[in-house]
């Protein structure tokens, strides 16, 4: 018995951070890939562990939305679990929002995760359910916006 979404979170993080193309896209304008962590679990920190400064956009936050409702067999064991994760790419802009800056990032994430299977062990199926725009107006008139892709995972629990 285990909490399977731990494994899924690790797999998502490792998959995203290991991709050189995504790291290039997350570097932004005039910065080198890897100047900051760029991909964070649950929330972006106040201080990035690599740059030792506040994280700058673009950045990606991976968060668990729901662990789902597990399905059980007659003898009580869990047989399937359905965690749901949201992966949000953030950017910031003064004035009008241009989602094109995030398009390449979210497309690359989708290539890496949609319809993919965690091969160790081969019993996890990960796919995107949708994507929506998230907009936050800050007090100093800047606009922080993002695109949140929702990914659903099917995990067949070992029995």
């Amino acid at each position, binding site marked *: 018995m285990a909490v399977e979404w731990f494994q899924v979170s690790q797999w998502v993080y490792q998959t995203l951070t290991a991709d050189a193309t995504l790291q290039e896209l997350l570097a932004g304008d005039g910065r080198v890939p890897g100047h900051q962590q760029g991909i964070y679990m649950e929330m972006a920190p106040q201080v990035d562990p690599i740059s030792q400064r506040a994280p700058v956009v673009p950045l990606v936050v991976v968060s668990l939305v729901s662990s789902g409702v597990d*399905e059980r*067999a*007659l*003898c*009580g*064991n869990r*047989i*399937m679990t359905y965690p749901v994760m949201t992966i949000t790419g953030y950017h910031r802009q003064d004035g009008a929002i241009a989602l094109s800056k995030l398009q390449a990032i979210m497309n690359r994430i989708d290539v890496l995760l949609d319809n993919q299977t965690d091969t160790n*062990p*081969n*019993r996890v199926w990960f796919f995107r359910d949708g994507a929506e725009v998230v907009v936050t107006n800050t007090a100093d008139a800047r606009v922080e916006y993002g695109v949140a892709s929702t990914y659903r995972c099917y995990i*067949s629990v070992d*029995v």
Partner: protein
Amino acid sequence: MPRLIAKDVVLTITVGNNAAAVGYTAPSFSTGTAVCTRAKSYSRSTEIGMVESGALCDIQQLNRPTRISGTVEMDMNLNYSTSAANGLFLGKEGYFVRVVANLGYTVITDIGIITSVSIAVETDGMISEQATITLGVDGDSGLTGAVVGV
């Protein structure tokens, strides 16, 4: 506290090594396999046949019981990453089978023949297999373990 949930149910099936056939050959059985870890549901229903023996002058029916018949239906999840990928019942139509459902204080043992097997595959669900076992078999010399040998 009464137990109203189907938890800790142990479901064991034993499938004969050969199908019932014309020119009957006694089936041989291996050790039963506990399948409760995959079972989504177990359903058993039985009924007894009746004949009406009333005479013309009778003013009511006079029913007499004859033979019990019934079916067991099971819905199983298939773990397609193991050797059970072929299914538990798939291709076993016509085979003798023993089903033991241990509900705790109640143990139901049935002997029957697998008469219906279906498999379902959906993108938003599991791969599952449904089987219907018709109770009441002939020539079941290897099936003496039946508690309810209908």
